[in-house]
């Protein structure tokens, strides 16, 4: 019985390419991985947005109307809803002038988790403590 911690580092902005979006959907799949693992084994991703990766996760998105796809905001909210730890780099938000209250929460979905805005040093610590580091 073991938990394997993974750091999912999202460094590309949402929407233009697909990689950063796939980080969110892959993280979400941690909920169901037990079907393929031995009892008690788990995989726990921490989802960290750094650099340009902090772009495209703000609230108020509507990608369905113009493009017929789910928004990245919805995926972030789903991550909170399934109790994933979500971190956003404080320095990068400041660099781009994005106020913290522009980030989504999932209170309307009754999620207990909220986004953690943390210094880059803390995200480095998450990378150090993780068994595997995956850049998206």
């Amino acid at each position, binding site marked *: 019985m073991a938990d394997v911690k993974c750091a999912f580092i999202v460094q590309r902005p949402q*929407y233009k390419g697909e990689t950063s979006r796939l980080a969110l959907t892959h993280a979400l799949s941690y909920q169901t991985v037990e079907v393929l693992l031995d009892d008690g084994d788990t995989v726990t991703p921490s989802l960290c947005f750094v650099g340009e990766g902090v772009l495209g996760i703000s609230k108020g998105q*509507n990608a369905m109307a113009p*493009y017929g796809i789910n928004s990245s905001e919805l995926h972030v909210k789903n991550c909170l809803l399934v109790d994933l730890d979500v971190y956003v780099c404080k320095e990068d938000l400041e660099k*781009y002038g994005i106020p913290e209250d522009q980030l989504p929460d999932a209170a309307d979905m009754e999620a207990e988790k909220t986004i953690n805005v943390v210094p880059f040093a803390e995200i480095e610590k998450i990378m150090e403590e993780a068994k595997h580091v995956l850049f998206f």
Partner: protein
Amino acid sequence: MKLGVLVSDYKICVETIDRMKSDNLGLVLVQNGVYHAVLKEGGKESSLLGKTPRLYVLSEDLQSRGLSAEQVDKRVKVIDYSGLVDVIFNDFDKVAWL
């Protein structure tokens, strides 16, 4: 010649545009290029906004990113896909995608 450049990215297009002559250049901010119209990185607006007075941004790409027309710099004209078609045919002699 009037060249309209569609700027589809926030970071990687800037260097190429910076070295182009601005006389007859226009910029259309689409995809993640829309951040040029909105963000003030390190407190400063994007250098692209000073490059030319012919600036456009695509409303659908603002909308999908949760950005509103009010956040857009006043010099940039907000257009939709239909407006973009007119800009491509009427405002420029040729267009390029970066």
